[in-house]
């Protein structure tokens, strides 16, 4: 359902993505791990076309986009592609001048041209679903970090995207607020949503991921199910990386210390 091949992206002289190939099946949860600067964030931004790749192809749900020389994308194309994807940002990027409910229905009203009554109904249901039914009229500044992030999830869900992208959704949160966000995400995977999640939450990755990819220096250097990545991978860099998450991943750390 999502197929990307030979994706390249540079910022100035720095090549951040150096040929990414990835297929994501419908209903699958793909976890992207890797050190900072490995290109996880850029990959997700490219999947939503918030960054335009320099080369490669992306095919989502039958819509195919090719990038490269002479392939200047018209804004219309970008917009119709972006509507098929939802994005949850590390620092939520909620609209501070709108309430939780207004944040959630903004896309429905402005982009999908729903009438306000239907949009409000759907917005309320979504906020209910992420456990914020009582906070619909709060402004983002009146919510905790975890609540803000859950509004962000509801806002992305409102557009009924084919795929939901999470760019380190819990990295900016206080530790005690991480759980509530992960719980909502877990619920989504249970419902069969297709997720791609860049995260440092290794426990979550093992429990919820159908597949884990390890990125390093702009390429996918290992790829497999959680048992493989966290247990059997022979990739030296993967094991080094995972050894830093001892509490989140006892298995990998014992393997490494056993060596």
């Amino acid at each position, binding site marked *: 359902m999502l197929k990307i091949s030979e994706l390249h992206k540079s910022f100035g002289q720095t090549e951040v993505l150096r040929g990414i190939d990835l297929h994501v099946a419908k209903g699958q949860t793909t976890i992207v791990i890797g050190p900072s600067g490995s290109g996880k964030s850029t990959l997700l*931004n490219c999947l*939503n076309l*918030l960054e335009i790749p320099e080369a490669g192809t992306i095919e989502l749900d039958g819509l195919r986009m090719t990038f490269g020389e002479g392939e200047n994308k018209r*804004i219309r194309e*970008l*917009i*119709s592609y*972006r*509507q098929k*994807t*939802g*994005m949850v*940002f590390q*620092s939520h*990027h*909620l*609209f*501070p*001048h*709108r309430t939780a409910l207004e944040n959630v229905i*903004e*896309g429905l009203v*402005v*982009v999908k041209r729903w009438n306000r009554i239907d949009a409000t109904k759907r917005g309320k249901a979504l906020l209910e679903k992420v456990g914020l039914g009582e906070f619909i009229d709060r*402004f*983002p*500044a*009146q919510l905790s970090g975890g609540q803000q992030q859950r509004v962000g999830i509801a*806002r*992305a869900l409102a*557009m009924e995207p084919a795929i939901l992208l999470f760019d380190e959704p819990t990295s900016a949160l206080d530790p005690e607020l991480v759980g509530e966000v992960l719980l909502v995400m877990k619920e989504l995977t249970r419902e069969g949503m297709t997720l791609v999640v860049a995260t440092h939450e290794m426990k979550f990755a093992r429990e919820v991921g159908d597949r884990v990819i390890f990125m390093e220096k702009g390429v996918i250097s290992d790829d497999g199910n959680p048992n493989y990545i966290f247990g059997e991978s022979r990739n030296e860099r993967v094991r080094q990386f995972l050894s830093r998450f001892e509490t989140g991943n006892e298995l990998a750390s014992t393997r490494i210390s056993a060596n």
Partner: protein
Amino acid sequence: MSQERAERLWEIFLHSLWPLLQGMLKYTIPLSIISFGLSLIFALLIALAGLSHQPYLRLPSRFYVWIVRGTPILVQLFIIFYGLPSLGIVLPAFPTVVIALTVSEAAYCSEIMRSTIKSLPQGQWKAGYSLGMSPFQVLRRVILPQAARISIPPLGSQFISLFKTSSLAALVTLPDLFGVAKQIAASTFEPMLLYIVAAGYYLAICSVLTVLQHRLENKFGRYSL
């Protein structure tokens, strides 16, 4: 001060109040409001052009701001009123002042708008785009409402300053608040009294404007607790 002189001053004071008020109501206030309204519209366009990635929009915008901010408004006013007639373009005093104030004010306001739009986090654009909004929709629904709120205090003081600058109208023959004060001062030989009365009127209106500006700030500021 002799009692006779004090009585004369009191008499002139009482007789000047109404003409000065008339000058303010007929000229100073309309000039300020019309010029500010027009300049906000132009300022937004100039600011957006100045933020554009397209050089053919950005460069003219920057050039305009450079010229206008680099020359005194009094000189601009005199160019329009006394200079243009030599090219065969003769404008009446009122539109001349409106044009001069608008041209100058638009440049300053556009800089305020440009910097507030620029100061908003990039993430706000990303969030809008990620919902499938067009650049125009993000601008209208996400960026401008937030930029408007941030720019209210500086735009407010810009208006207060414009209100006072409108007194230049007197130099191109308009009988505005300052113009009337000048006339009466000349005919009564009491400049001190008349200019203090004029100053009192300006101060009164500016004080009201300051209060209004604070109200507006509070109204728009309700989301940022």
